[in-house]
């Protein structure tokens, strides 16, 4: 009961912080979605870092260390490659978005390619990827609250309560609420993860090195990558694909619009890789749990952090850990909810009704927040295994936007609107087929050498995307030039 009260206390603080964040501001679309483009390094850092510490890393990072061992280390790597790319990528995106007054990721594609229909396609891909991601956050929230409360609050009620809190403060405060809640979240998560990651190995094994030695002795080879399956080639391809997709998530992409100036991104590119090292301590918890709470099979491995915490600590500290876990669901969840609602209002509804004013679009986006929340709630309770497939598709789906985005940033037009649209459609179709059929590269071509068969299957979708993009661009280059889409002048970017 003590743990539950502590968790509810943190949820209440998050709600109050989120609602108070709107004070003194007229929440028009500009303020609600991009904070008036006035955030400094600290807030942009926290919004970007919010993507490092979601329930996926809090529960999934320790769960993967517990269940899969060495392959979990990929979670540590893709962020630092994405942060390096952000030094050049995000300032270019920010400059264009500021000049054109953009509010969503699909706005960017619509403006860059002068095609509202391409914007609508990107919005559909984005929402299709975001809903399962939101479902993941809600499921994680439900697991955390029901586990730390000893099932005193049922899983379903925990999810409904969390969704209600999310919908209220997103509707009221938009990105300002997310930014202020992330201050609380990151402060708490730092304390909790460091405390658990240092204390647990020392408590049970006398240190981090003895803990690793004990794990290696009990499960030889567990700490490295296997020769086949999740092998080094799987590792490299998965890290690269995840790095490409990192900023393609609509909510991460839009978080870049909130910056006050472009140097914010360059400064953050220095600090964010180091900040990611906190994930090491999440791994330490998972590896410690391997020998302390053995026997968790399959997806139950995600419970390893909570199980070892409840076994080791007093209820009040279990509550603090649970509170940190709940916040890792609320902050990314709020950004996901806001991005989805904005894209639906601005890039789908407004394509159908172009005369809709900016003020009305803003009102519609806020009205769509509870609608998207209800859709996510429906899939949380009724999605079954399908949602797991959709979630695996999420990262692969948003990665399909990367080639068109990257080529659109070149100094002259390298890709036509038709090329970009067909490339995205082809990539998305391949992702859907491969994910739903569960085919691997080895399954597609059994005769290939083992290292090639181990490649992440997302590579296939990206290659198809690039081939179609290139072929259609070559075929439509003249036609689009005739239509009045000449190579974009440098002054316009």
């Amino acid at each position, binding site marked *: 009961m003590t743990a539950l009260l502590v968790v509810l206390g943190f949820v209440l603080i998050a709600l109050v912080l989120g609602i108070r964040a709107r004070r003194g501001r007229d929440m028009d679309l500009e303020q609600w979605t991009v904070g008036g483009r006035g955030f400094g390094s600290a807030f942009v850092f926290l919004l970007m870092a919010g993507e490092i510490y979601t329930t996926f890393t809090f529960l999934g990072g320790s769960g993967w260390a517990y269940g899969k061992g060495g392959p979990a280390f990929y979670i540590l790597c893709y962020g630092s*490659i994405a942060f*390096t790319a952000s030094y050049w990528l995000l300032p270019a995106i920010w400059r264009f978005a500021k000049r054109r007054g953009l509010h969503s990721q699909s706005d960017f594609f619509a403006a860059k390619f002068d095609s509202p229909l391409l914007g609508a396609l990107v919005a559909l891909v984005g929402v299709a990827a975001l809903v399962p991601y939101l479902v993941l956050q809600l499921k994680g929230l439900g697991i955390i609250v029901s586990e730390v409360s000893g099932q005193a609050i049922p899983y379903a009620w925990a999810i409904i309560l969390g969704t209600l809190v999310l919908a209220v403060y997103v509707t009221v405060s938009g990105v300002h609420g997310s930014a202020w809640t992330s201050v609380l979240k990151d402060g708490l998560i730092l304390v909790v993860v460091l405390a658990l990651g240092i204390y647990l190995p020392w408590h049970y094994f006398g240190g981090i090195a003895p803990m690793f030695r004990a794990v290696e002795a009990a499960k030889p080879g567990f*700490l*490295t990558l296997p020769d086949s399956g999740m092998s*080094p080639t799987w590792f*490299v391809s998965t890290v*690269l694909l995840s790095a490409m997709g990192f900023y393609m998530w609509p909510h991460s992409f839009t978080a870049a619009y909130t910056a006050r100036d472009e*140097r914010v991104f360059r400064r953050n590119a220095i600090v964010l890789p*180091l900040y990611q*090292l906190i994930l090491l301590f999440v791994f330490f918890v998972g590896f410690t749990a391997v020998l302390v709470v053995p026997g968790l099979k399959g997806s139950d491995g995600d419970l390893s952090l909570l199980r070892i915490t409840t076994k080791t600590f007093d209820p009040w500290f279990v509550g603090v850990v649970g509170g940190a876990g709940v916040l890792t669901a609320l902050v990314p969840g709020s950004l996901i909810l806001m991005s989805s609602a904005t894209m639906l209002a601005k890039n789908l509804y407004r394509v159908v009704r172009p005369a809709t004013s900016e003020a009305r679009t803003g009102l519609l986006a806020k009205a769509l927040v509870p609608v998207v929340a209800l859709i996510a709630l429906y899939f949380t309770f009724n999605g079954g295994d399908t949602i797991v497939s959709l979630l695996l598709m999420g990262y692969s789906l948003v990665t399909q936007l990367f080639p068109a985005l990257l080529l659109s940033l070149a100094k002259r037009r390298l890709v036509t609107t038709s090329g970009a649209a067909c490339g995205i459609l082809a990539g998305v179709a391949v992702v859907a087929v491969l994910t739903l059929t569960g085919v691997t590269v080895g399954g597609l071509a059994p005769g290939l050498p083992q290292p090639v068969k181990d490649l992440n299957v997302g590579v296939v979708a990206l290659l198809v995307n690039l081939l179609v993009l290139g072929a259609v661009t070559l075929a439509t280059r003249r036609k689009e030039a005739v239509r009045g889409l000449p190579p974009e002048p440098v002054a316009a970017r």
Partner: protein
Amino acid sequence: MRLRYLAGAIPAVGMLGGIFFANRSEPVVLGLPFILFWLVTWVVLTSVVMAVTYWSDNE
């Protein structure tokens, strides 16, 4: 400018290119199995490279 692009690619190439020979748990360095020590080293070097890039680029 090209030199900075090249510098930015160094950590990724080092981290991922080296994983093929760093994929072992021994020796233990700073308490970490070798593969994890290797990856952590490159994450830290990423920050160093980005700091140098920043200061040589940014009144």
